[in-house]
């Protein structure tokens, strides 16, 4: 491809508003599901009408962990497993931001598992998107905490003998207030879910089952990306609101998908402010109110003062 063709590719690409086109091509393999989720994320932001300047994305390490580097937002590529605490710091230091964590199953649930459960417990107002491809892609196809029992991985060459996490159940049990699962076949639904999650108050979690064609699919002789999508089409069942105890994934089993949990609960910062307002009364200045809230408050005060003067 010559230089001009490259330039017009970058310019004309409908994703150019969201991606750092100067960083293309990306590292993901043909048939990989991560790109679909990134596109769905971009669509979700577009439809949400949110200000792109007020959305930050944080990734850990791994194939999905590269997402932060490609998305044209305030973006952080942190250390392995630590995207959630970095996102927590960002959100608390600058609460008007929408903070999205975008990472993989190994990163979020093995090395980073402790941070996930605590952010969910606190109902930290962030969105976590996990691309679950059942494997460590970047290091070459090792077993992760979500690899289905009996599936082959490079560190379980005779088949996985461990029990995997059921991520929606884990999130639900830990206190997440929005939990959904889709597969990378369900691009529009992923997008709709991310849009909902962005507008959800509290800890929202979206799991997306996606193929790793180079490692998981190949090692298990499951064919290419298209074969994976066919599996999703045949065996993914929409079950909105189902009890999350019933959404385990076995090897090539049926996959329950849909929005499982959506509940209203005060966020971490709401609890902080509520507590200190109760204890300190008027002396306490609410921490981290967003700019529109502050403006509205100033306006209300000015109006009240004007009325008082009359």
């Amino acid at each position, binding site marked *: 491809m010559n230089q001009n063709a490259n330039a017009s590719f970058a310019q004309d690409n409908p994703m150019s508003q969201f991606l750092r086109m*100067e960083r293309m091509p990306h590292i993901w393999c043909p048939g990989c599901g991560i790109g679909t989720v990134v596109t769905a994320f971009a669509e979700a932001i577009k439809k949400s009408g949110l200000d792109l*300047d007020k959305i930050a994305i944080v990734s850990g390490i791994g194939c999905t962990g590269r997402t932060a580097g490609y998305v044209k937002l305030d973006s952080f590529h942190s*250390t392995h497993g630590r995207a959630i605490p970095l996102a927590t710091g*960002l959100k608390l230091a600058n609460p008007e931001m929408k903070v999205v964590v975008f990472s993989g199953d190994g990163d979020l649930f093995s090395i980073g598992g402790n941070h996930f459960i605590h952010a969910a417990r606190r109902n930290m107002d962030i969105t976590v998107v996990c691309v679950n491809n059942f494997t460590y892609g970047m290091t070459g196809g090792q077993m992760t905490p979500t690899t289905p029992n009996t599936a082959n991985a490079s560190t379980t060459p005779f088949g996985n003998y461990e029990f995997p996490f059921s991520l929606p159940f884990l999130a639900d049990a830990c206190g997440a207030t929005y939990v959904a699962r889709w597969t990378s076949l369900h691009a529009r639904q992923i997008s709709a879910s991310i849009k909902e999650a962005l507008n959800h108050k509290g800890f929202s979690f979206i799991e997306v089952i996606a193929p790793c064609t180079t490692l998981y699919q190949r090692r298990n002789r499951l064919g290419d990306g298209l074969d994976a999508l066919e599996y999703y089409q045949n065996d993914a069942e929409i079950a909105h609101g189902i009890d999350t105890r019933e959404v385990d994934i076995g090897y090539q089993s049926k996959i329950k998908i849909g929005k499982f949990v959506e509940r209203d609960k005060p966020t971490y910062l709401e609890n902080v402010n509520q507590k200190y307002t109760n204890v300190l009364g008027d002396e306490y200045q609410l*921490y*981290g109110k967003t700019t529109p809230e502050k403006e509205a408050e100033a306006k209300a005060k000015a109006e009240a003062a004007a009325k008082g003067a009359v």
Partner: protein
Amino acid sequence: MVRKVKADPKGVLEGPHFMDGDHALAEGALAAGCRFFAGYPITPSTETAERFAERCPEAGGLFIQMEDEIASITALIGGAWGGQKVMTVTSGPGFSLMMENIGLACMTETPMVIANVQRGGPSTGLPTLTAQQEMMQVRWGSHGDYRVIALVPDSPQECFDLAIEAFNLSETYRTPVFIMTDETVGHMHEKVVIPPASEIEVVERNWYTGPKDQYKPYKFGAENHMPGPMVKVGDGYRFHVTGLVHDERGYPQATVEAGKINITHIIEKIDSNADKIIRFEADQLEGAEVVVVSYGITSRIAIKAVMDARKQGIKTGNFRMITAWPFPEKQIREIASKVKAIVVPEINYGQMVREVERVAGGRCKVISVNSTGGAVHDPSEILAAIKEGRS
């Protein structure tokens, strides 16, 4: 560009106090403008976190108890890029857990202050007893090549003063700055005088003010390798931050050349400015036969031995490091060229003494007065070493 302003009075608890070093650290941080603290309880440092948690609602800050020390340090990186001055405090085991993300903070040039109230190690060690055993870990603990700034207070008053200094240095050089205190300083109560806000100078973050489309998160190869200005999330710069070797745009560059530029910068911004960073106290070095080089709580013991030696007619100089890193190479080299011996007492099995030996380069005797931790020295041990050095 370093811009100094007066401290925000909301964080300054002006007046004379009777408080311990751990509490003084929290007060120093608040006076310096720190409004975000992420921490995890660990003896003997917990009181700093407790004090901050209690004080921050009135100061307009936020304290969060994270799930572990890894989360605490990583939340600071988020907090700093969110626009706040940030701090955490810990002790040995927690310090070990923080190491990987200290590297991320160095690599991403994220200003923050990390206090380590040292206790005896290794492992769980002596949780309630004093030590100075992480003086090398603070310098070398995270993988890869980098530099740090580490300050060593010897009193609660200095915990307050150096906390402010640490924030000022971290903003100036865009780097994590460590306060390497210890259980004794952390838990001893002394008079701490907090000056009025109008007398406290704090370094503001070097905020970028140029055109939006020309912003780069990093600047390599500037005069004295000084770091470039920062922005925060939400201001529309849509910048990228990574722990990978990166260019000035913050984009990963997996090449030898990019690594050379990136790593040289994070090392040279400290090394080239070492003279401006290094702080020490020296007394009666002129004509000294023996000089005692110490730091932190050990310097409070060493001074007794120095005075005893002087009474016995031994010309003894005293050199107290306030900055352990960067190491005061020039000063120690000069001392080494003039004295018979340098005596280095420390509450470890000989750590900073290795730097003294390296810099002395055989020009004088270097005598380590080491210990396995848990207690401060008996001054007589140091006095014996002074006598040995003179002979």
